[in-house]
């Protein structure tokens, strides 16, 4: 089965600083990849999804961007963080013919 790696596990960044979160997938090829954000006590918000290398769809307008330079690598970036970017960021994947998404361990981001 698929395994998702995310790093770092926790991150504290000042407002206005850049961000780069990385997600890699093992155990499958050509997965659909997703970035979610979860605010404290809230549900998950889908930020980006990708069905292939270089193919990124954005669900929510914001100061974040995503890239997929390799088949099993998904990167979430920001040039200047806002306080509102704080949250729990989760990477997920599924195969094109499966409704079961596998989630990574997440990165807890605190913007100060």
């Amino acid at each position, binding site marked *: 089965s698929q395994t998702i790696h995310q790093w770092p596990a926790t991150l504290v960044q000042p407002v206005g600083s850049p961000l780069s979160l990385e997600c890699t997938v093992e155990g499958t090829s050509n997965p659909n990849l*997703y970035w979610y954000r979860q605010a404290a006590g809230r549900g998950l918000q*889908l930020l980006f999804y990708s069905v292939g290398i270089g193919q990124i769809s954005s669900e929510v307008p914001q100061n974040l961007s995503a890239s997929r330079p390799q088949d099993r690598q998904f990167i979430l970036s920001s040039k200047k963080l806002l306080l509102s970017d704080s949250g729990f960021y989760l990477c997920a994947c599924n195969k094109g013919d499966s409704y079961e998404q596998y989630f990574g361990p997440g990165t807890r981001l605190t913007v100060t």
Partner: protein
Amino acid sequence: LAKTTQPISMDSYEGQEVNITCSHNNIATNDYITWYQQFPSQGPRFIIQGYKTKVTNEVASLFIPADRKSSTLSLPRVSLSDTAVYYCLVGDLSGGGGFKTIFGAGTRLFVKA
């Protein structure tokens, strides 16, 4: 994308059966229903999926009526470790566009001793 509505929270006791109902009045013909479980500071974990009638696996059952406008996740004989947030999702994988998902606020289940 069909919107889902679930109770905000539920309480239960160990050993009881728990039924969590999700409303999805605008479900489309090609949409499937999936349920996830999430513990604090962890990513959600897939529990079960279904299209219609009843689906059962080793951890839960999913009941879907004929009109598919709602679904009920049934957890048999819950234990303290089942305390978590449960999410109902509705979506369609056809068309090659990925599975664009909407996770609502979910249902917080508290299992008491």
